[in-house]
């Protein structure tokens, strides 16, 4: 259709004419609106007339164009006022007029609008600014798909590159990287994202050389490869921004990198190539161990090997049969565990997933109600009860399954840390081996995001403050290379992550002195070993004598502790001065479920998170006192605990007013205790939290909602807020 062609032209045109000219865009829009218009849609016609008028008023057009537009307006108005029959034919005529006008504007009007600069020059100017890298008529949804897909590929490639660090001959890893670059190149070229396809193309050719064995991965090549991966990531994220209308620019260093990729030999000067210890599972070794070939013969072959793979050379020397080599290669693959078995997977939108989990939760509740009813029905319904209990098994399994869908392995987090350690080590001149264990340990999807930052920070801290420089380590009789051990495992419904380094450890005396100097402590007698070590989590504490690029950006371990606490997690610390230290983070597997104590006040029920409950008791008369006839206090082991009456705060009727007949639940927040007055404890339960919004904090005293076992909504008390209220400013709360 002719109109469509014109639209395409318009799009490109508007990308060049970037000053936001209304007429072009609107003409474009007008045409689009016209296509959708129905002759009998009177309000649509009025709208169209309005926008057409707007275009005519706002745009500066040449006389002939104006005339055509007026003619079009006349036709539309004729239809609205009923002077001419409102038919498809009239609309088509109007369409033709607008089409003509659009043709005119592209060909003639453009020169007219920009009399001083030829279109070519203008193009040139925008090329410099990088606008040409983003095609305006690109399909946004395709690009979004591309972004997701490429990010996955890049993450895979990054992981493979790190494998290559340790084993530069891992063919599977090389192939993975190659495939990633290759696929990205293909897709980006299709989407006309030249800036990505060019980069991916050069990276791909580098890796095709690695794959063919004409260059060996490592040293400078490794730097260039990792740099390329970073660069592609950067460009992809700018593409994402470009979707929101920002111009797509070449990132800094792009051209330099392209140059390096074209002449990767030059990258060698970046860093001294270190001799890597050969991995044990080399083809030659396997052949020797299988008794197929003698060590001397092997060495001879290696000498002659040149650029060809060892197996080929051995075949040439006729020392082995092709069958033997193939067998050895298979053994090698097995040893590396490199069976490329990809688990098949489907991408699912997270909102659908959340909905599924919601529904399963509801199913569990609905089913438990049926179970209760069936229990009441008595003996003669035995078969029915059997079926209900059978359905119950299925429901429970479904629930387990739905919870497991949310769980993802910690692997991506560990990968980021691996990369971080590598980069930090290079930057600081420290040599560090990172060992990871249990990267397949699974935690809730939301949890991964929240726990990654604190972990990264702690690892940074270990590299920067823990591990010593190689010289210092040697002097202290340690190996030159420092070791960091990162491990994760499940324990008692929690996930535990340990970061262990063999650095200098935490010096009790230094911490003590520093904390004193900063005024963090004054009373020294009662501090235990643990208390002193935990001082490093205090705000304003930093033991590093110099602020380095790595850590010490003014963000201390206090933030780490705060973040972990926010996840309802705990952090522990063991130190062995001179030998190293261990950070141990313990966090719940999911944020979606908490243990809660259900209390009753009047007819209302509320949930108190069990973690914040210290104890519950029935107060004795002699322990109660009032302040100014208003505030009530409970004396507990010699300390005064202020009381909060939910009945007054939340206007609850029929609540127990006699304190000695009520219960006090003592809760803790920030080491301050407060008593919440309840009528009754209804029991403890695992509770599914319904995620809370920012605005909820405005609802004082309530931190969120939860679905209770009977299907009703329960409200979770905001312990922090209630404690604050009890301790200070009732005025702040208002009436």
């Amino acid at each position, binding site marked *: 259709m002719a109109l469509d062609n014109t639209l395409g032209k318009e799009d490109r045109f508007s990308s060049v004419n970037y000053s936001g000219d209304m007429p072009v865009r609107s003409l474009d829009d007008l045409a689009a609106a016209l296509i959708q218009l129905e002759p009998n849609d009177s309000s649509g016609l009025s709208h169209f007339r309005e926008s057409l008028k707007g275009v005519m008023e706002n745009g500066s057009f040449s006389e002939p164009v104006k005339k055509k537009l007026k003619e079009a307006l006349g036709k539309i108005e004729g239809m609205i006022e009923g002077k001419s029959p409102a038919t498809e034919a009239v609309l088509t005529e109007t369409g033709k007029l607008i089409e003509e006008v659009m043709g005119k504007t592209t060909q003639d009007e453009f020169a007219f609008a920009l009399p001083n600069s030829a279109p070519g020059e203008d193009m040139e100017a925008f090329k410099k600014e990088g606008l040409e890298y983003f095609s305006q008529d690109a399909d946004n949804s395709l690009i979004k798909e591309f972004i997701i897909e490429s990010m996955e590929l890049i993450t895979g490639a990054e992981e493979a590159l790190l494998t290559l660090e340790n084993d530069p001959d891992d063919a599977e890893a090389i192939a993975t990287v190659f495939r990633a670059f290759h696929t990205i190149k293909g897709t980006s070229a299709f989407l006309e994202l030249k800036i990505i396809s060019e980069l991916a193309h050069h990276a791909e050719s580098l890796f095709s050389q690695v794959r063919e064995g004409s260059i060996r991965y490592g040293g400078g090549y490794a730097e260039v490869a990792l740099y390329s991966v970073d660069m592609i990531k950067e460009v992809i994220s700018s593409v994402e921004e470009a979707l929101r209308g920002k111009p797509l620019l070449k990132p800094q260093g792009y051209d330099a990198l392209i140059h390096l990729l074209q002449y990767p030999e030059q990258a060698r000067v970046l860093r001294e190539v270190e001799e890597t210890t050969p991995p044990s599972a080399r083809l030659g070794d396997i052949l020797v161990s299988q008794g197929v070939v003698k060590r001397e013969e092997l060495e001879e072959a290696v000498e002659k090997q040149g650029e060809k793979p060892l197996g080929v050379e051995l075949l040439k020397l006729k020392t082995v049969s092709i069958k033997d080599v193939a067998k050895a290669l298979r053994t090698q693959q097995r040893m590396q565990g490199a069976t490329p078995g990809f688990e098949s997977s489907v991408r699912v939108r997270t909102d659908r997933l959340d909905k599924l989990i919601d529904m399963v939760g509801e199913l569990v509740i609905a089913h438990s109600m049926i179970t209760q009813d069936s229990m009441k029905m008595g003996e003669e319904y035995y078969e029915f009860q059997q079926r209900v209990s059978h359905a119950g098994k299925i429901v429970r399994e479904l629930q387990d399954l739905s919870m497991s869908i949310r769980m993802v392995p910690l692997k991506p987090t560990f990968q980021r840390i691996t990369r971080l350690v590598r980069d930090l080590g290079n930057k600081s001149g420290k040599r560090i081996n990172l060992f990871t264990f249990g990267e397949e340990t699974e935690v809730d999807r939301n949890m991964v995001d929240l726990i990654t930052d604190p972990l990264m920070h702690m690892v940074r801290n270990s590299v920067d403050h823990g591990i010593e420089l190689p010289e210092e380590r040697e002097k202290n009789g340690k190996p030159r290379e420092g070791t960091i051990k990162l491990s994760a495992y499940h324990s008692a419904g929690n996930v535990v992550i340990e970061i262990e380094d063999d650095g200098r450890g935490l010096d009790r005396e230094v911490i003590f002195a520093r904390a004193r100097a900063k005024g963090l402590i004054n009373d020294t007698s009662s501090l235990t070993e643990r208390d002193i070590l935990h001082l490093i989590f205090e705000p304003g504490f930093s033991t590093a004598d110099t602020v380095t690029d790595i850590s010490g950006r003014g963000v201390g371990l206090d933030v780490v502790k705060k973040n972990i606490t926010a996840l309802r997690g705990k952090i522990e610390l063991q130190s062995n001065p001179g030998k190293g230290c261990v950070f141990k983070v313990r966090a719940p597997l999911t944020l979606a479920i908490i243990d809660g104590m259900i209390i009753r006040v009047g007819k209302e029920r509320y949930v108190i998170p069990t973690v914040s409950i210290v104890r519950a008791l029935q107060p004795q008369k002699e322990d109660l006192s009032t302040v100014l006839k208003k505030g009530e206090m409970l004396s507990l082991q010699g300390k005064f605990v202020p009381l909060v009456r939910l009945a007054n705060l*939340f206007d609850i009727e029929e609540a127990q007013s006699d304190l000695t007949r009520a219960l006090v639940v003592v809760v803790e927040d920030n080491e301050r205790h407060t008593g919440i007055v309840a009528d009754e404890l209804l029991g403890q339960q695992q509770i599914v939290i319904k995620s809370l*919004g920012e605005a*909820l904090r405005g*609802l004082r005293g309530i931190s969120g909602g939860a679905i209770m076992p009977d299907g009703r909504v329960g409200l979770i008390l905001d312990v922090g807020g209630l404690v604050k209220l009890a301790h200070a400013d009732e005025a702040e709360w208002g009436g």
Partner: protein
Amino acid sequence: MSYHEGASQPDEIKGWLADKAGKYLTFNLAAEEYGIEILKVQEIIGLMPVTKVPRTPHFIRGVINLRGKVIPVVDLRLKFGMEIKEDTRRTSLVVVKIKRLGHHVTMGLIVDDVYEVVDIEAKDIEPTPEFGANIDTDFILGVGKINQKVVMLLDVDKVLSGGEVTLVDQVTHIQEK
């Protein structure tokens, strides 16, 4: 804007009313009949136990669990300043999906009784009469006539705006995030 120029007055109103024509769900509230655009209605359910939320405006009865989603429930009688009435078997919850500050919010409206879905044509819709400052008609789209009956057509998006907006938002936000 040049839209009004050249157009005769009745035409303009005709266009405006044409937008409002369509299917409405009608319900009873204190012996008056109201209508909500059917496209905004997600479902109609019987009244279920409502959990009171403290420190919210009086017309917010509380929150309910709508199949795993927590949504706020507004008592329309209280919202419109009508007298409080005991819930009956006919009392229903109309779950609507409204647009607020650019995102969709699901909430329940408590009404006395749900009637039917009617098709109201443009010719049967009159602009809302002015009652002066005492009666706020902002959230009424217009007045529809069906078989000699008068139906107030509610603009659901606007029903919950006004002075209490912030607090309503707080409750609805809980659900949204």
